[in-house]
Each structure stands twice: as C-alpha cells, then as structure tokens.
C-alpha cells in the first residue's frame, strides 16, 4: 500500500495579533510561526496508521519555499519514507487549479495506491485541491473522511455529513481521499524525532522538471485573484474594550451585570 500525502505549510494564527499588509490582499506573515496545515497533519497520521497496518511506503509532497522543508521533515519523523518539495518559484499566486496541476505533475509517475490530502487548508480554505487533483489523475475520490478502512483493492471511507450524519462509501484503488480533522489523534513529533531524519534527502522539483508552462500556473494562470482581506466589521452589540487590565475588567463585569449575566 503506497500512499502519497499532499501537505502545505501555513502560518499559525491561533494566538497571533494579525495585521493586514499594505496592499490589503494578505496578512503580514513575517512574525508568524509557520506550521503544517492542521488537516494535513491528520492526513499524515492517517497514512502512517494505514502503513502500520498494511505495509508499503509513504511519500509526502508539498509545494512551497525552502522553509517548507520543516513540515516535510516533520512528516518524515512521523513515519513517512520519502519527501518531495516542489519549489514555489513561478507558482506564486496560483489558484487551486494551479496548485493541483503542480501536484499532478509531481505525482502522476509515482507508484501509488492512495493519495491523502487535507480537506482544506487553514489559510485560504478553498477545499478544492484534493478534488481537482483526483480529476486530473482520473481516479475516484471521497471528501471529508472521518475513517478509512482498506479492504483488498478497495477503500471504505466514512464521510462526515451535516448534522452528525455519516456516509460510508467504497472506492476502488487507486483513489484520493481528503481528510477531515478529528479522524485520528496525530502523534507527537519530538525534536529528537526530527533530528533523526535531518539527513534524509528531500527530493526537489521545479517548474521545468515538472514540464509545466508558466501560463498555466501562478497569477497569470489563475482565474481567481485575491482582491482584499479584511477583519470583520464592528457590528451592533460588539464592543472592543480598551484601557488597563483593571479598567477592562471593571467595564466587563459592569456589562455582564447590566445584561443580567450575574
């Protein structure tokens, strides 16, 4: 059972004070810590668990700059066997189709039975790359997986639907599955684990290696362009308290009292 996992590096925004850049089309990422996209982390864990049960090897693929080697090493430490980085140069500003195309070219000649991707990424949240990739490879796919069982030449996938409902679908292999968070509990990756894989070679590919022309990817190849990002507007009933800690606390308790919360 050979598995390819597509992963992506994203900024960690959980506790950060976000700022929007000058052009207003993205957030300022300089001070942000870069991490593996949460959904992809579950995908790598799921791949490792499938490998532990059925054997085979895992190849992780990412499209990104040199810094994104960190998440590849992390995946190697979790139990992946090989890693490929598609260099980001020329791909900047790609829409989902551009990214899928890059992955398609990197993956199509690999020997695989299963491709796992995160259901979406936390930064742009398109949720399209996995599906587009499956279309390009012309293989069956299932989205939002909350459980995968491999039976002979088939994958039985438990899909998460709305209102606490699940659907069970069967795919013949090779297939692509997009992973929902919560499908498993991803293991902890220790510093020693990462240190142990620091010498493993990461294969690098660029646009030319993948025989992709510039007009099909990047901003020029995109049909979608990010125009503006913004914070939610302050609406009715929302108030941001300012001042010293004591003042904020005082005002807060006052509001809670006024609204009958105490």
């Amino acid at each position, binding site marked *: 059972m050979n598995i390819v996992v597509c992963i992506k590096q994203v900024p*960690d925004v*959980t*506790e*950060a004070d976000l700022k929007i850049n000058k052009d207003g089309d993205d957030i300022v990422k300089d*001070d942000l*810590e870069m*991490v593996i996209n949460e959904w992809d982390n579950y995908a790598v864990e799921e791949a490792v668990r499938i490998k532990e049960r059925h054997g085979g090897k895992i190849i992780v693929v990412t499209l990104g700059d040199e810094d994104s080697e960190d998440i590849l090493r992390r995946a190697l430490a*979790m139990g992946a066997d090989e890693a490929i980085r598609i260099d980001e140069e020329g791909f900047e500003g790609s829409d989902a189709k551009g990214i899928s195309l890059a992955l398609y070219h990197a993956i199509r000649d690999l020997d695989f039975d299963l491709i796992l991707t995160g259901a979406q990424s936390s930064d742009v949240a398109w949720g399209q790359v996995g599906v587009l990739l499956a279309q390009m490879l012309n293989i069956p796919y299932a989205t939002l997986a909350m459980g995968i069982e491999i039976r002979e030449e088939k994958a039985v996938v438990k899909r998460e639907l709305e209102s606490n409902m699940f659907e069970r679908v069967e795919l013949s292999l090779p297939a692509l599955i997009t992973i929902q968070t919560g499908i498993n*509990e*991803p*293991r*902890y*990756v*220790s*510093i*020693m*684990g*990462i*240190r142990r894989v620091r010498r493993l070679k990461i294969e690098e590919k660029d646009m030319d290696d993948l025989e992709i022309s510039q007009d099909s990817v990047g901003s020029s190849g995109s049909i979608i362009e990010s125009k503006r990002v913004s914070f939610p507007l302050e609406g009715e009933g929302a108030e941001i308290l300012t001042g010293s*800690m004591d003042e904020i606390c005082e005002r807060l308790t006052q509001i809670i009292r006024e609204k009958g919360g105490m």
Partner: protein
Amino acid sequence: MIPQREIFWNIPWVWPFYLLSFISVFIFFYGLLKHILFWKEGIKKQRIRLLLKGIKDVVIDGIFAKRIFKGDISAGIMHLSLFWGFFGLFLGTILLALDHYLISFLKGKPYLLFSCTLELFGLMLIYGLVTAFVRRYIQRIKRLENKTEDLIVILWLLLIAITGFLLEGVRVAYQVPAWGKWSFVGFIIGNIFSRQTALEIYPFIWWTHVLLSLSLISAIPFSKLFHIMGSPISIYLNSEPLQITPAEDREGRFFYLKDLVQLDVCTRCGRCVEVCPSNGVGEPFSPRDILFMLKERLFLHRDKEFDPGLIWYCTTCGACLEVCPIYVAPFRIIRQLRSQEIEDGTRVPPIMIQTLERLYKYNNPWLSTKKKRAEWAKDMDITNITKAKERGLMCYFVGCTTSHDIRAQEIARSFSNILKRCGIRFGILGKKEPCCGDIARRLGEDGLFEDQMEDCLSLFEEYEIKEIVTSSPHCFYTMRQEYPALKKGYALSVIHYSMLLESLIKDGKLRFEKELRLKVTYHDPCYLGRHNGIFDAPRNVIKAIPGIELIEMEHNRENSLCCGGGGGRMWQEELDVELKMSERRIMEAHNTGAEIVITCCPLCLIMLEDARKTKELEGSIKVMDLSELVLMAINRRRS
C-alpha cells in the same frame, strides 16, 4: 562437661540436608542472577564510583535503617528488630558452621554467650514479626497495601523462629545440660516435654525447621525479601549525582542501573503514596503502583494493562524520594517513562502536545509571543545585557512564567526594584531570553530541553555572563543541577533570588527600618526546598523584617506540600479532580491563622493565588511573593 552444642544431634540421615542445602543455594543464586541480568541494560549507562558518602549511607540507612524511623517510630523499631533478629540468627548459623567444619571455638564461656545472644536475636525477630502482623492486619495502617505475599512472608519467618525455639527446647528437655538456663527461652519450653517425647519428636521438628529455612533462602530473590540484597545498592547509588545521557545516545527503553534497581527492590511500603500530593487530593495516581506495574512488565514479563496517561499526573515534587527508606525516586523513573512516551509520540495526550508545540514555537509555555517577554520591564530602566556595551554583569534570568504571566510579573518588578534600591548592578536578556528547558525536561521532551539549554548557554557565552540569579526555583534547579550533568566544564554560578536577598541582608545592603506587623506563613517551593535544599534563605529574609511573625504550616521544609504546578501540571487542568492540590495547600496556610502566605516561585504564586479565589478565601488570606513582601517592607521607610 564443657558447654557446647552437638551438631546434627539425633539426626541419623544428614546427607539429604546437604543435598537440600545445595538445591536451595542454587535456586537462590539462580534468582539473584535473574535480577542481575535485568539490571544489566542499566549497568553500562550508570556511573559507579567509590563514594564514602555512599558507604556511610549504606551503614546508617541500610544496616541501621534510620530512614524507616522517619515519621513512623513503630515501623522503625519493628524493622530494626526484624532485621537484627534475622541477621543475627543468620550470623549465628554461619558461626556454628565455622565451628563445626573449620575451627572449633564455640565451647565454654564463648558458647554460653553465643547461645544467650541467639536467644535475644530470636526474640527480636519474633517481636518484629508480631508487630508487623499487628500493623498490617489489626491496626490496618492505611499506607500498607496487603497482598498475599506480605502475609506469607510474615508467617513463614514466624514459623522458622518458633520451630527454632521449639527445637532448642526439645533438645534441652532431653539433654538437660547444666548450662541450660543460658538458652533461657529454650529452657522454659523444655519444661513442657518429657525426655522420651523430646527424643521422638526432635527429628520431625528439626526437618520442619530446616525445610522452612532452606525454602526461605531460595525464596529471597523471588519475593519482597529481595530488598535485603537490593536496598544497599539502591542506597549506595543515591550518592551518585544526577546523570543525564544526551537524547541522541538513547534509543527506545532507557533506564539507568539506579532506576532498575529501585523499581526492583521497592517493597511497596507506601510511604510515597502517603505523601504524594496528587494521590492526596484523590487523583488516580500512586508512585508505588506505577513502579510495581513497571516491575511486573519489565522484570516479571507479565502483560499488565497500564494506562500510560497516569504518568502525566506526577508533579515531580520529590516528596516520594524524601520519605523512601531506600531512596527510591519514582518521579525520576516516571520522567524517564515520559521521555519514552514522547519519543514514541502516539500516546501523548493532545493537551500535552499543545503545550509542547507552544513551548517549541514561542519558547515559552504561555501562548505569548517572544516579543512580549520583556514587557514587564517597560519604563523600568533595566539594563538589557544583549544591548549594553558592559560585559560580565550579573544576569537576572527572569524565566517564562515571571515574564509572561501578569500576576507573576510582579516578582520581576519587585525584585528589580529591590536590587536597584540596594545599588546592585544587574541586567536582563530582554526579548532574547530563552526558556531554560525546565518544562521540556520535566515532560520528557529531552531534545527540546537540550536545544533550549544550548540557546541559554550560547547567550551566556556571547555576553560573558558568569553569574545568574533566577526568579524561578525551576530555572534554578535546571541550570544548577541539570546543565552541569550534561555539560562538562560548566562553571556558571547560579543562585535563586531568595539567596541573593539573604546575602544582601547579611552584608547590610538591604535594611528594614520600620516594623511590619504581620502574621505570615511560608510555602516551600518543591524545587527550591526539596530539590535544592534551600529552606532557610527565604525564612531568614522573612525573619529579618522587624515585626513579622512567621508561623509554620503543618507540612513545611522537606515535608512541604506541592502547589500542583510543577512537572508540567500547570498546563494540564484536565487532570485536576474536585479538590486541587493548590486548594489543599491554601487551606493549610489559612488554618495557621496567617494573614499572608509567602512563597518564592512564580508557579506556586499563580497556583495559590487561583486557589485562594476558588476557595473563596480572598478576604482572609493573601498570597505574596517574597520579593513583594521585601519591597513592601522597604517602602515602609518612606511612608
């Protein structure tokens, strides 16, 4: 006739005795070998040197079992009688054998003395055994967990002692020697039997006694009696200072000889359970049970179910080691287990993963960015060593919690103010200050600990820092005890700020002029007190303030109760049960009648402060850091 004992009197068939002795000694050594083979994987890793302190400890804590008396005199007397009774009789048997096979010397007066002494040893053994029985099955002392083995061992030894006396009595009854009264117990028993019965029953009793004794010998390595052999090793190895093997040189299961011997020789006396703060508030954690489970899995190869989640309860407070008669340190073994769980990765609780990832990303466990690390010092005009031209300044190592937690920041501000008032030159590392590695190390993330240590050391080197004073006892412990264990030639002088305050008072640089009429109590932080032996410095600082009355809590100094914030517990509220460790502690402080509980650790400060709120004691007791108290006392001068 010269007083002496005829060996094998009235025993016509002696050869089965030799055969059985051989078998029992063979089984004994076979069992011993199994233990040694179990320790083997730890022997190479363990540093073993000839240490005078080790030998001294073996005599005092082993042969005289001094630590058993601690807090339980009855147990001390029981064990001492049991041990000396057993050991004395064992020596007596050896003397008898020497007398029989080598040189005959047990005759005349020496024999009478010998005979009489053995009577005493026999009585001591019986006294010890009866007390043990009473403590376990009549008094039912809570910390003693009774397993079948415990009962068998007592009864077995008791039977040996009784048949021994019986045997003597029967012999005296038949032989009626003139010196019979010297064997006073045997003499009394002898009165019961007629000469004829004595002659007839003697061989039966003799064989019973022999079989019981020989089987006991062979059972030693297979029962808790093995502690006779293992305890001295555990006691001796305690003198070897902390040893840390770089994470890179470890793979999979990693235990030092010390760890393996300790879990092997634990007799489950339960003192550690009794003092464990986690167990004390009803959490499902018991140091003894974890050790026993480990022994069952690793040594006895029993496939015991074990919830790996349990190892995260330990606050590493060290109370267990403090009370263990043979210096077993469950918290160290648990730390090793954590390290193995971390490297495996698959069973680490999600909340722990969050803490560790945060610690890695932000270099602090508080979800606060590196930029905010020196925010407390804003407008305080404190030298930033990384920006100043001056080299060799004393470095105030603030630490993560003191830097980022709003309440704990008061420690940094108060302490800096005190130093300024005393005219002490110092600096901080500002934004560049890394985490010292305490949390990573406690949680078993040794790779991260080493990285953080290297970060600290390279900063110290870059800015020629030689002297460090810390706010947290945790940074203090890590830098004072763990860095040197990993780094050869480590020569930094690290002190905790309470020690600096104490010496400032001694030197007359810190003076209190006005009285501060307050009743206070002092909470010993585990990592300052138990782990570093600093009990008096903070107390001396408190007592130096005129007008202050210091009242001690029930648990103080080395018996102090953990606030529940150490060992990573600060960031795992999920493990808390209805009563929190900090709440138990604040109640104890409150019960002293003190107005303020003083501590000198940022974690203790936060934990106790929270407990004060949840226990609704805000009106009746305050929590203050030592630095805050001192600053308050000097500020009095101005008012």
